């Protein structure tokens, strides 16, 4: 069982994704979400998505960070300021993640199947 598909390309610069894509939501298609890393915290710290949804992490801090799943299902690796990394949600489950440099930074992705959230 894989909670995440491979993380997609690392990009630098401004975010390309809105928090939620209304058009995609209306059509029942996969959505895109963004988690902002700022002031040594993930925001939102807890995010619920569906299989096929895309999650993007963007680092706004001066300090580099990672978003690294405890079950190894995804890892953004080292994100410098304004760099982003995306991952696509796979099978349902709860995935806890941390920043490997600053392990007191914690987040959780909940992947649920079923009707629209």
């Amino acid at each position, binding site marked *: 069982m894989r909670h995440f598909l491979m993380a997609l390309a690392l990009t630098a610069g401004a975010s390309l994704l809105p928090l939620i894509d209304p058009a995609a939501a209306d059509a029942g298609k996969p959505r895109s979400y963004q988690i902002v890393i700022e002031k040594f915290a993930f925001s939102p710290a807890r995010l619920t998505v569906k299989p096929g949804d895309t999650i993007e992490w963007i680092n706004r801090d001066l300090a580099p960070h990672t978003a690294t799943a405890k079950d190894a299902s995804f890892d953004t690796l080292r994100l410098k*300021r304004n760099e982003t990394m995306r991952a696509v949600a796979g099978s349902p489950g709860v995935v806890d993640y941390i920043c490997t440099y600053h392990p*007191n930074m914690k987040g959780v992705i909940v992947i649920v199947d079923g009707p629209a959230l």
Partner: protein
Amino acid sequence: MTKKLMIAALALVAATGMASAQDKLNDLEIAHAAYTADVIDIRYAHIALAISDTPAIRKFAEAMISDHTAVNEGAGALLKKLNAAPQDNAFSQALLKGAAEKQAELLSLRGDAFDKAYASNELGYHQTVNKILGETWLPIVDNAELKEFLAEALVTFKAHEAHAGLIAKMAK
């Protein structure tokens, strides 16, 4: 006096002792002192990676290298943009002198004794530098961009102080 209180007291003494050297620095001297403080902590981290086998200590040291390097790269980019160069000063020299003595002490230690000394030093060092940066330097920095940059750096250093508190507790 508890160990925690002793560490806090030592940090305060260190800050007081440096007071005469860090009064009335100009922007470029503050930039130099902040850069020097970063470099010193990177050196401590490299010593930790060379000596300690404790995963939590090594992870902390790796974070210090990553973060302080990023801060100094950001500072360098800002100074280049401002077409300015940092200026050496008595406070930077005092920092380097104190660091040389601490590095010699750390290099003589091994095992748990090293972990305890490194963690305690990281906590005290960040407490001292954060106090000076937040209470003395930030209020007197003239350049708005440098002030904003240093305020953001302080967010990073305060996170380090909290992290150092955890490893210091672990290494007791």
